């Protein structure tokens, strides 16, 4: 599994305050906590806290002063991504492109040039996908464009777009079906990722819904998620799902072995 820590996001009050008051310590606290919890990447998102590219760079540099965990550059603005990618010490993930041609034409070459990975959201100008076929069609578009322009399957993360279970209940299962079909795109397949927390938005059993949904997605072929990496039970459930699917070799201390082997 590839776990991307979601917590450094201007949508959270403490991060928003950190950006506005230029207080590195809060950002660095979350960089450390999430890395220790097992994050393979740290998502950095400014949210609505600022619209200055300098603030975004400041956030990334604050993270990189504390940990060696690679960055997931979370922005939909090309200029922000282009500036941010230059200061990343390790090959980052660009989060994200949509399936729109002009977006793909802009972002794929940036990823290729910097040896970065790219998350492709299965949506376009027309909006969010409504069923399995739309997701698969948009995913295939992103995948083939990315391959044509020089990314390897290992650098492509397809995101079938998670929607809240509480408000759009049928979409959860459509997403799982789309994951299953993404695995057939190539051999080896691209990475498949979800932004997990969306599934439980405004619901009462958030952690339980997150966990069960993630397990079902992994069974269908998903291998990456942006999530609350400090939810230990969530990560251990994901690791256990992969053990049950025979992706790693069992031993009585398999959780410890998995976590040790991922430590930087």
């Amino acid at each position, binding site marked *: 599994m590839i776990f991307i820590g979601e917590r450094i996001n201007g949508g959270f009050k403490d991060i928003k305050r950190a950006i506005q008051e230029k207080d590195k310590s809060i950002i660095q606290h979350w960089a450390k906590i999430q890395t220790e919890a097992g994050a393979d990447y740290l998502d950095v998102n400014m949210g609505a806290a600022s619209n200055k590219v300098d603030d975004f760079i400041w956030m990334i540099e604050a993270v990189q002063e504390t940990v060696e965990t690679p960055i997931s550059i979370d922005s939909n603005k090309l200029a922000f991504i282009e500036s941010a990618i230059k200061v990343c010490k390790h090959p980052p993930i660009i989060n994200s492109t949509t399936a729109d041609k002009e977006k793909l034409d802009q972002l794929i070459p940036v990823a290729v040039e910097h040896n970065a990975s790219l998350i492709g959201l299965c949506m376009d100008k027309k909006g969010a996908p409504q069923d399995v076929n739309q997701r698969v069609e948009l995913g295939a578009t992103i995948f083939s464009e990315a391959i044509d322009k020089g990314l390897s399957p290992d650098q492509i993360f397809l995101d079938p777009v998670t929607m809240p279970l509480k408000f759009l209940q049928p979409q959860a299962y459509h997403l799982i079906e789309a994951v299953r079909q993404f695995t057939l795109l190539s051999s080896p397949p691209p990475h498949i990722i979800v932004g997990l927390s969306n599934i439980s938005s405004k619901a009462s059993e958030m952690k339980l819904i997150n966990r069960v949904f993630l397990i079902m997605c992994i069974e269908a072929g998903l291998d990456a998620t942006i999530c609350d990496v400090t939810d230990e039970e969530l990560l251990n459930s994901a690791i256990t799902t992969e053990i049950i699917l025979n992706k*790693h*070799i*069992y*031993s*009585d*201390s*398999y959780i*410890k*072995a998995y976590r*040790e*082997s991922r430590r930087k």
Partner: protein
Amino acid sequence: MNIPDVKQSWPNPINEVTIGATKEEGGTRSTTITIGGTGTLPFLSFEGSSPHRPVIAMEVWDFAPADWPEELEKYFSDVWDDPGKWAKKCVDEFNADLICLRLQGCDPDGENKSSAEAAEAVKKVLEAVTVPLIIWGCGNKEKNNEILPVCSQTAAGERCLLGTITEDNYKTLVALCKADKHKLIAESPVDINIAKQVNILAADIGLAAEDIVIYPSTGSLGYGIEYVYSIMERGRIAGLSGDKMWAMPLLADIGKEVWKVKEAVATEEEVPGWGNHVQRGPLWEAITALVYLQSGSDIIIMRHPKAVGELKKYINSLINKN
């Protein structure tokens, strides 16, 4: 016709382990041996690099074995009352890459030799030859915990490969290896999960993964070889794919297994139709060994000089061809 490219790329090379220490490194060996380091499955040089060739250790005991068949006796009976002479013959006449001293004489159900006697055997071998040394206990856990500390100290700084640790007996040996700078053999009973678990347990109390060689148990040709093969292959694939607790070199203990099966030792008079045992015995050992080579073994422990010679030729032919 286009032939599809079947090359795979593996993210995680197998650990390198160096056995033996020269004078400059604090030992007395004239050479050291490094195994592992491969970034692909065995002998697939088109796919990735394998910087170190597999090596053959010849087996020496700390007393004259009573149960070795005549076919082995005729090569070793002139020297097997002295482990030093025995080791020297293996190196000088049969080109052993290293020596595996098995302290079988310390088995409480047999000769029950003392730890002082075991240490004496270690000393003799170290003085008689300058190749690196494997020191293998007697098979009894409690006794191993008595004799191996003394042997480890006798060979301190020589960077020997000591064995074996198991899932329920590893603490003493791990401590010794860290103190005296040796490497360790981690043994498991043909079980891929336990093989991993022993490594995790040893790593947990501070042994570096780079100090471990995996011994997943060995079966002779005709006696479960397919099962061991599949475990070694699957473990190696896991190691190459990124499982750090399976990314260790592998050891196969061939001679001990082969020279107790009837297919290797029975004479033609006993089993008409099986052919001359003088040829069949070493052939059985050589074929068993080459199966283990193909499953990823980095160290092969053997007994019969002719089988050793054949396996060396085979390794050369695979490496030179590539």
